[in-house]
Each structure stands twice: as structure tokens, then as C-alpha cells.
């Protein structure tokens, strides 16, 4: 793709065929030219106020896309972001509406859904096969499995619009941000009614946010200027409504901009109105570094002033490039100074048709006729309109300007809970019954809209080529067929034909589909009803909804030390933890070296990520007795105990140690990811009980390490005055002590199965204590060890990790933790359920196993008995001390017998293992208590 600028702009040259255009290029004079962007690699000159679509149109381009199903050429239709005809890929973002995208220097625009080019698209052959793809064909054809296998790759390739950039690094190129704001009044729509509503509210002292999806305020006044009654919107601007400012647009906008109470969002689409009067707003390029900003705007009052829009007229080939809505043609003229064509025919019977013709003529467009819609037979032309066939003959033209019916843009009203219903008398959709705090003004109410002319398709037309839904290529014929097939309710008709379900969200087709449904079923439009209007009212990128690509990271106080030594990191929730020390390819050796250090000498692990709670108060023991399955009120000061928390269904929620550090004070550890939950859980059972307990989360304030191994005592003895002998500091005791001069809480516990101390101390001393321990242990060849090594060590001890070895169905009885549920206690959370579990026969059990051969099954591997799944592995590792592969698994209760052989398949091969009753290492707990 060439990024070079074309050397000379081709002024006024009419180019056709290969070069991609069929229209006449309007020159851009050198003085005016400010911006250049690239379309399919070719440089296009543009004016600063241009959109991608207007600049391409000026350059002579007439085909902007290929349709979804038949790949028919499509040109500009609405020029206001309401139809699907100009979807393009802009700077890597697919499906950007080119008519809403302001041009920027160097922007890369490429076409979509056509190969090799928009002008010559091989997929256009699809139209020749339209007989094979009737409406709802995916429900009717390819129903044989073998047929579907053949067809699927083609259908998958053909389906969808646009291509997503799969490069994960590309995400940073599309920065999205989320903003949360509050205002008293929000006005959606910056036309004259919206401006007036904003000024009125601001004058009353309200804080107002005025939102418009265009680059500037003014609505239709921007392209009809001071001349009123020139477009189809005329009816709501005929005569100024009572109280409507009669001043010009510039003066109005000036008043808005100068008002201190009004904030204006332009280029901002309000895509949804949610409960609590919350508006979702997608703000395009709010500044140069942000592609889209989604604002959640909370409000007290919302004024919907979104106006109304014009919809197409139904006739054969009504989708041909060159057939344009009158508002589209006038927008090209008025906003961008682009002449939409040389010779135009205007279709329309209302006053609006005459005024559109006048406007075009005054811009130098030759108007060869004004034709009422019921006189139109078809648009003639292959890739672009060349004439309009009427009942009376052909009118040659290169532009058909269609003055269609008007539809209130009432999606937000419907989402607010208001009613949008057909007004039989006035023949328009109108809004009513708005909820408190939401009001509608202007054309969106339907009040001032001209009555809809409705359907007037010529019977001579080929209804297969009368397009109702341009997004999904649904024709009049398709809708009639679907209704004949029984899909005669507007909601089933929608789902079956996918009409109204395309990128335009039914803006172009909903009214027509309702009219057709009503006509074909003999109902009134009122009886037919409308499909439900849901957010988003306009398409927005999923990335904008997802928001910024941010991930909070928590680092322990010793993080830099781990980095210094060199470790492989793992994510544990938001925390970073060393998995082991070494390099990515040294896993097995590193883990084994760390392992032997702990088993034979001494090891050191950073446990700062453990959740830590300080629980203080005269009722602290009482609260813990209620929440934990075992008892803590009888725990003596200076002792620690393992505890498990369950819910009322007896399911294990968390585990950890509880140490009584003073008569009224407990120190609790929780699993790393569960601290916030455990705190909430304790607070919950405390709430409203009147118990005297204060719970403080001290996780971030405290660092923690575990020093474990036969030489742990000798190592720590060098750093503390505390007597570490078994007699004075036995297993499951806790003591306050100075370690390396730092006030600490020492717990003698043994997760890894060796003599060891867990030491908790103020986080700011993290590096100091870490270094001191490594230095003290140097003579014993101390080694730091990581999470992976710890997992091997604890697995040999059959110590369970909650949420690794247990899940949302595990109770203590079946998890080999029955001893921790003290059913003799009066009451605790989950007692009733655990008692029930104890009384009935267990369904499955958590057991240890050793593999019969040296094969490592993956975590989660299915266990098979008699050809049926009978369990799953939760943890499995190589045990260096046993020189075998060991693990924990859930098996059906019948299999949970020591020595029982279990089967599984690894790499497609059956392998066996034996259930083991005892821990795999030091079952007598002798080493722990040394």
C-alpha cells in the first residue's frame, strides 16, 4: 500500500471504471486544501470540515460499500450516520461510519466487504444465487450434516462485516477511556429545540450538559442555514414555536457557549438511557490521544431533543448508488459544499419535495423532474443510477433525491420507559407517557412531523429488488415471504428476516417493516406495534464499552529483591509472586534445588500476599466461634490454630490460621485472593449483632515470610532474642518478638511440613528482614523458594489449597477436613449442612494418589472407572523425596479406599494410579514438631 501523496490532484476530471469512481470530481483549490488522508493507499485531499465520506464524494467516489448479503454496490444515503452504506475501516477500526468521521491528516481508510475493490467485487455473484438464499435460508438449507460441513467454511467467510485486527498489541492504538459525570439536566440533541431547552434550564440555575453527535451545534439549521422551510424538517421549523428564539444559529450557539452553566459535548453519541437516569455517551476523539470516551452521565432531568430522520422510499433498485435521501443531499451541499450530482430527479409528493428541488437548483444542480413516490417504477443503472423509470417514462439523471417519510428518533424515549406509538389520526409515530424526570421536545415527539405517506410501491416493480433493510439486504419480497410462512408478528418477523437487526439498528427500515407487516396481515399499524428499542441506539465499538486496558498490579515489599535474584513471576489475583527463582527454562532444576534446600537445610519464602486481619474486641472470640467451623474462644493467648470458614450450605469458603495475640485480639490470615471477601463475611455476621469487635485489614501494612527447614531455628536464632526451643516456642504457638530489630509476630506453623516460622512484620522493613534472614542463613546455604516449590512441598503433606483442591461444591467432610468442623459447638455458620453431610453417605472424596508410572497428568485430568468419568485431579506434581508423581483428586466415594487403582488417560494413553491414605511425607508430623 503506497503512502505517497499523489503528485497532482485531478481537478474536475470525470473518472470511471477501474479507478474507482463514477462521479465527477469537484476540484479542491490549493488554498483550501488543508488535510490529506489515504483511501486504499491513495491520497485524498480534503477540507478541514470534511468527513471521510464528504471528501471521498468530492473526489468523485460514488460507491462506498458493498451490501451484506448480495454485495450490491451502495452509495451515500443518509449522510448522517443513520444508515449502513458508508462503513469503512479507519486506522484499523472496522465499521466506522465514514459520514460521521472527521478527516485527520494521514488517516488510513480502507474499504470493506468487497474483493478486490468496491467497483469490482467477485462476491457480487451472490446475487445470482439469491434463489439459493431465500429469506431465513440458514434455517432451511444445508440441514444435512454433510451439507453443512461443506457450506460452513464459505458461510463463515462470507458472514459479518469488517475485519478485526487480531494483533493484541494493536489494542494500545485505540485508547478508550471511561468518565463518570453528574449533572442536573442533560439535553440530548443540539438542534434548535435542544439549544432552547438547554438555555432555559441554565437560566433557571441548572447545570446543563448539551450533547450532540455532530461536530457542531445547530441540528438541521446547520445545513439549511437561516433559510427555513427548505428541507423535510421544515414542518418543525416552519414558524418559530411560541417562545422559540428567533435569532440566528450563530447567536444561539454563542449564547450556549458563553453560558457558565452549560457544558457542550459535540461528536458525542448518546447510545443509551439506563435506569437511574443514567446516559451512556460515546464521545469520538475528545482529544488527540483518545479514540473514544464513554461517559456515564448521571442526571436528575433528561430532555430528549433528538429530532426526527428521513427514511427511504420503496421502489425497485432503491439502493442504487446515486439514490440519496433529501437530507443527505442537502447535508452534502450545506455542510461540506459538495455538489451531490449534476442532474437530479426528486421523488416526493410533499411540499418538502418542491423545496428540496429549489435548494438543489439554487446550488446549480439541474432538476429534471419531481415525481410522486407512487409514480416511480424503478431506478435504472448497473453500478450507479442513470435514470429513473416512472409510470410515464424514463428521466435521465445521475442523482435521485428521495423525500421520504419522517420518523422520530425516539429510541431514548422508549428506553426511558415512555411510549412510542402510532398516532392514527396524524399518521406518525408519537411519544407519550414519559416517566418522571424525562421529557421530549421538538420533532422527536412526533408533534410537528408531516403525516407518513407510507407504502406506495409500484406493482410493476420486482419486489426482490425493493430493499427495505439496507443493512441485511432484506427485500420487500423477503418480508412478504416470511409473513406467508407464518412469521406475521413484528417481533418474529424481525428475528426471522433479521430486518432492523443490522448496524443501523432499524433506523432505515423499522417503519417500513411495520407498515408492510400491517398491510400484509390486515392489521393497523397501531395493532402491529413496534419492536423493542434497546441500547445502543447507534453502534459503538465494543472496545469503547470495555474501556481502558488497565490492570492493577500489587507488588510485595520484597518485589525488588526477587527481581535482583532473578525469578519467574506468576500472577495471583492482582499480586505478583515469584513462581520459582531461575529462568523460564530452568523450572525443573530450580524447583528441585529449592525443594531440597527446604527439606534438608533452610528455605525462605515471601508470604506478604497472605490476607491479614486484625480482629480486636471483647466479643472477638464469640464472632470467630460463629464464623469458623472450629472453636477460637478457648484458644489460649500465644497459640495459633488452623481454621476453615464455610457458608450455610457447608461449602468451604476460605481457610487460614487464627492466632490469639492478646486476650481480646486475634490475628487472622486468609488465602491471598480472599481477604476482601473474608473481611466482608466477618463484618456481615457482625452487622447488627451489637457485638464489640473491630476488624481491620492489615494486608498491605504487613510483610510476611516463612523460614522453614531443619536449619530454620539456627538461622532465626541469630536474629532474635526469643527462645526458639521446642519447649519455649512449640508447634502452633505464636509469639511477639524482634526479628533483625523489627517488631514481629512469629507463628510456628508448618504449611510445607518442616520446622518453620511464619513471621509478620511492618511492610516498610520488608527488604531489611529479607536480607537479614538470607545473610543469617548463608552458612546453612539458605535458598529463597517460590510458589511452585511451596506447592510441591505442601502436596507431599496433603495440605489442601482452598479453591485449587476445593470448589463451590466442597464441604469439609468430603474434603478430608472433617476434624476441623466442631459439630459439638452450639452453632456456627454451616453447622446444619455439615451435620447433614456427615450423616449421609459421601458422594465423593478428596484423596491422595501416587502414579504407577512416571507420567504427569495435567491438573484437572478426568479419572475414569468402568469407562465412566469418576472424578478429577486437582493437583499433581513430581515428589522428589518419593521419586514418584503424586497428587490430590476428587473421586467417587466408592473408589476412595487406600490401595484402590484409578485410571486416567494421558496423551491418549491409559495410565493408572493408586489411592494413598497417608500424607506422602512425614505422616507422623515428627519433622514439624522437631
Amino acid at each position, binding site marked *: 500500500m503506497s503512502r505517497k501523496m499523489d503528485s497532482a490532484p485531478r481537478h474536475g476530471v470525470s473518472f470511471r471504471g477501474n479507478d474507482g469512481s463514477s462521479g465527477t470530481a469537484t476540484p479542491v483549490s490549493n488554498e483550501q486544501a488543508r488535510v490529506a488522508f489515504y483511501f486504499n493507499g491513495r491520497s485524498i485531499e480534503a477540507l478541514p470540515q470534511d468527513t471521510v465520506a464528504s471528501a471521498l464524494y468530492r473526489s468523485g467516489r460514488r460507491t462506498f460499500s458493498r451490501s451484506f448479503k448480495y454485495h450490491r454496490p451502495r452509495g451515500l444515503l443518509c449522510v448522517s450516520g443513520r444508515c449502513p452504506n458508508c462503513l469503512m475501516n479507519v486506522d484499523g477500526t472496522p465499521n466506522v461510519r465514514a459520514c460521521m468521521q472527521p478527516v485527520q491528516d494521514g488517516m488510513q481508510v480502507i474499504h470493506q466487504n468487497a474483493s478486490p475493490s468496491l467497483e469490482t467485487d467477485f462476491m457480487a455473484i451472490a446475487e445470482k444465487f439469491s434463489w439459493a438464499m431465500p429469506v431465513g435460508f440458514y434455517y432451511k438449507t444445508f440441514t444435512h450434516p454433510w451439507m453443512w460441513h461443506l457450506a460452513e467454511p464459505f458461510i463463515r467467510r462470507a458472514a459479518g462485516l469488517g475485519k478485526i485486527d487480531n494483533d493484541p498489541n494493536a489494542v494500545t492504538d485505540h485508547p478508550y477511556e471511561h468518565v*463518570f459525570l453528574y449533572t442536573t439536566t442533560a439535553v440530548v440533541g443540539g438542534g434548535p429545540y435542544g439549544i432552547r431547552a438547554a438555555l432555559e434550564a441554565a437560566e433557571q440555575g441548572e447545570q446543563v450538559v448539551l450533547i450532540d453527535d455532530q461536530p457542531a451545534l445547530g441540528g438541521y439549521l446547520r445545513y439549511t442555514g437561516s433559510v427555513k422551510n427548505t428541507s423535510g424538517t421544515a414542518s418543525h421549523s416552519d414558524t418559530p414555536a411560541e417562545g422559540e428564539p428567533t435569532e440566528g444559529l450563530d447567536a444561539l450557539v454563542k449564547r450556549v457557549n458563553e453560558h457558565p452553566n452549560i457544558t457542550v459535548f459535540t461528536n458525542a453519541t448518546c447510545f443509551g438511557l*439506563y*435506569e*437511574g437516569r*443514567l446516559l451512556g455517551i460515546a464521545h469520538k476523539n475528545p482529544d488527540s490521544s483518545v479514540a473514544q470516551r464513554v461517559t*456515564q452521565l*448521571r442526571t436528575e432531568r433528561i430532555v430528549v431533543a433528538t429530532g426526527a430522520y428521513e427514511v427511504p422510499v420503496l421502489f425497485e433498485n432503491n439502493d442504487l448508488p446515486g439514490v440519496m435521501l433529501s437530507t443527505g443531499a442537502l447535508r452534502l451541499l450545506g455542510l461540506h459544499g459538495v455538489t451531490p450530482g449534476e442532474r437530479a430527479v426528486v421523488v416526493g409528493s410533499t411540499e418538502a419535495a418542491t423545496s428540496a428541488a429549489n435548494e438543489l437548483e439554487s446550488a446549480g444542480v439541474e432538476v429534471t423532474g419531481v415525481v410522486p413516490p407512487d409514480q416511480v417504477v424503478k431506478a435504472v443503472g448497473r453500478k450507479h443510477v442513470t435514470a429513473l423509470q416512472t409510470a410515464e417514462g424514463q428521466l435521465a439523471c445521475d442523482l435521485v433525491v428521495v423525500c421520504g417519510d419522517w420518523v422520530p428518533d425516539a429510541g431514548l424515549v422508549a428506553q426511558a420507559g415512555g411510549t412510542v406509538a402510532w398516532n392514527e389520526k396524524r399518521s406518525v409515530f408519537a411519544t407519550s407517557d414519559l416517566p418522571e424526570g424525562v421529557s421530549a421536545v421538538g420533532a422527536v415527539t412526533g408533534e410537528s412531523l408531516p403525516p407518513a405517506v407510507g407504502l406506495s410501491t409500484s406493482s410493476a416493480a420486482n419486489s426482490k429488488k425493493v430493499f427495505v433493510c439496507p443493512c441485511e439486504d432484506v427485500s420487500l419480497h423477503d418480508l412478504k415471504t416470511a409473513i406467508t410462512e407464518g412469521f406475521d408478528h413484528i417481533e418474529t418477523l424481525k428475528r426471522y428476516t433479521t430486518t432492523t437487526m443490522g448496524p443501523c439498528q432499524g433506523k432505515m427500515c423499522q417503519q417500513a417493516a411495520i407498515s408492510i407487516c400491517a398491510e400484509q396481515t390486515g392489521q393497523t399499524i397501531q395493532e402491529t406495534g413496534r419492536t423493542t428499542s434497546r441500547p445502543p441506539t447507534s453502534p459503538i465499538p465494543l472496545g469503547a464499552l470495555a474501556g481502558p486496558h488497565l490492570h492493577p498490579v500489587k507488588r510485595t515489599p520484597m518485589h525488588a529483591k526477587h527481581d535482583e535474584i532473578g525469578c519467574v513471576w506468576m500472577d495471583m489475583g492482582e499480586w505478583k509472586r515469584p513462581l520459582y527463582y531461575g529462568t523460564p527454562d530452568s523450572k525443573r532444576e530450580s524447583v528441585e534445588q529449592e525443594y531440597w534446600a527446604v527439606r534438608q537445610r533452610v528455605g525462605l519464602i515471601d508470604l506478604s500476599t497472605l490476607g491479614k486481619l486484625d480482629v480486636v474486641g471483647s466479643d472477638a472470640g464469640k464472632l470467630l466461634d460463629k464464623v469458623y467451623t472450629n472453636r477460637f474462644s478457648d484458644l489460649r493467648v500465644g497459640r495459633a490454630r488452623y481454621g476453615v470458614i464455610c457458608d*450455610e*450450605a457447608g461449602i468451604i469458603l476460605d481457610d487460614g490460621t487464627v492466632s490469639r495475640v492478646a486476650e481480646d485480639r486475634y490475628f487472622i490470615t486468609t488465602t491471598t485472593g480472599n481477604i*476482601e471477601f473474608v473481611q*466482608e463475611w466477618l*463484618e*456481615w455476621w457482625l*452487622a*447488627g449483632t*451489637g457485638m464489640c469487635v473491630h476488624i481491620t485489614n492489615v494486608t498491605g501494612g504487613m510483610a510476611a515470610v516463612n523460614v522453614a527447614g531443619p536449619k530454620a531455628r539456627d538461622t532465626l536464632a541469630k536474629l532474635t532474642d526469643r527462645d526458639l526451643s521446642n519447649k519455649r516456642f512449640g508447634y502452633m504457638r505464636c509469639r511477639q518478638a524482634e526479628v533483625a530489630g523489627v517488631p514481629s509476630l512469629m507463628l510456628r506453623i508448618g504449611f510445607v511440613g518442616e520446622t518453620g516460622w511464619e513471621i509478620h512484620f511492618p511492610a516498610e522493613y520488608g527488604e531489611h528482614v529479607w536480607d537479614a534472614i538470607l545473610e543469617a542463613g548463608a552458612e546453612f546455604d539458605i535458598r529463597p523458594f517460590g510458589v511452585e516449590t511451596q506447592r510441591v512441598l505442601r502436596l507431599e503433606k496433603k495440605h489442601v489449597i482452598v479453591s485449587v483442591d476445593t470448589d463451590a461444591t466442597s464441604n469439609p467432610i468430603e474434603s478430608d477436613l472433617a476434624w476441623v468442623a466442631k459439630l459439638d459447638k*452450639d*452453632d456456627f455458620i454451616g*453447622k*446444619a*449442612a455439615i451435620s*447433614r453431610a456427615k450423616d449421609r453417605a459421601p458422594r465423593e472424596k478428596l484423596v491422595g494418589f501416587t502414579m504407577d508410572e512416571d507420567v504427569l497428568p495435567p491438573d484437572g485430568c478426568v479419572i475414569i472407572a468402568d469407562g465412566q468419568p469418576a472424578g478429577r485431579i486437582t493437583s499433581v506434581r513430581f515428589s522428589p523425596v518419593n521419586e514418584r508423581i503424586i497428587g490430590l483428586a476428587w473421586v467417587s466415594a466408592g473408589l476412595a479406599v487406600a490401595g484402590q487403582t484409578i485410571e486416567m488417560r494421558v496423551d491418549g494413553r491409559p495410565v493408572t494410579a493408586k489411592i494413598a491414605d497417608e500424607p506422602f511425607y512425614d505422616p507422623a508430623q515428627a519433622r514439624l514438631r522437631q
Partner: protein
Amino acid sequence: MSFLIPCPNCGKRSAYEFRFGGEVKTRPEAGSSNEEWLGYSYAAANRNHSQKEWWFHTYGCRQWLFAVRDTMTNEVTETSLPEEAP
């Protein structure tokens, strides 16, 4: 879901700041029948309109509170702290 909850400590806040704790139920006395425990653990009244619920203000005062919510409109009509609840 984007309604507001007037937290007694923090004022009107988005429901996204809170964790939902379910209907306020009365926990059976220790020693109650299995049926009572099963009902308490698994059955919800799931009322139409006014329902008293637990909410925890995770991204605010970190307190559990009672909220009376209309389950049809999500309007929260009343909130209170458990200590002060009638």
C-alpha cells in the same frame, strides 16, 4: 442495572459500588429442622415490589446496610445501618 442506592453514610451512589447480599432473612435457631435450614439456605421469597435486602458498600464506607428496593423498578426507597434499624 444502574440504579442508585442512598447509602446512610455516603449518600446516593451507583449500585456498582455495592455488593448485593440477598434478601434479609431470619436465620433459624440452632437445632432447627432440616426443612427450616434448607429453606433458609436455598429458598428466596423473590418478592415483587418492596423487598428488604443486604448491601455492602464495597467502594465506599465498607459497611453492610439494609436497603428496601422495589424489585420491579429497582428504586431504593429506604436504607439503614443494621445497628440503627428498627
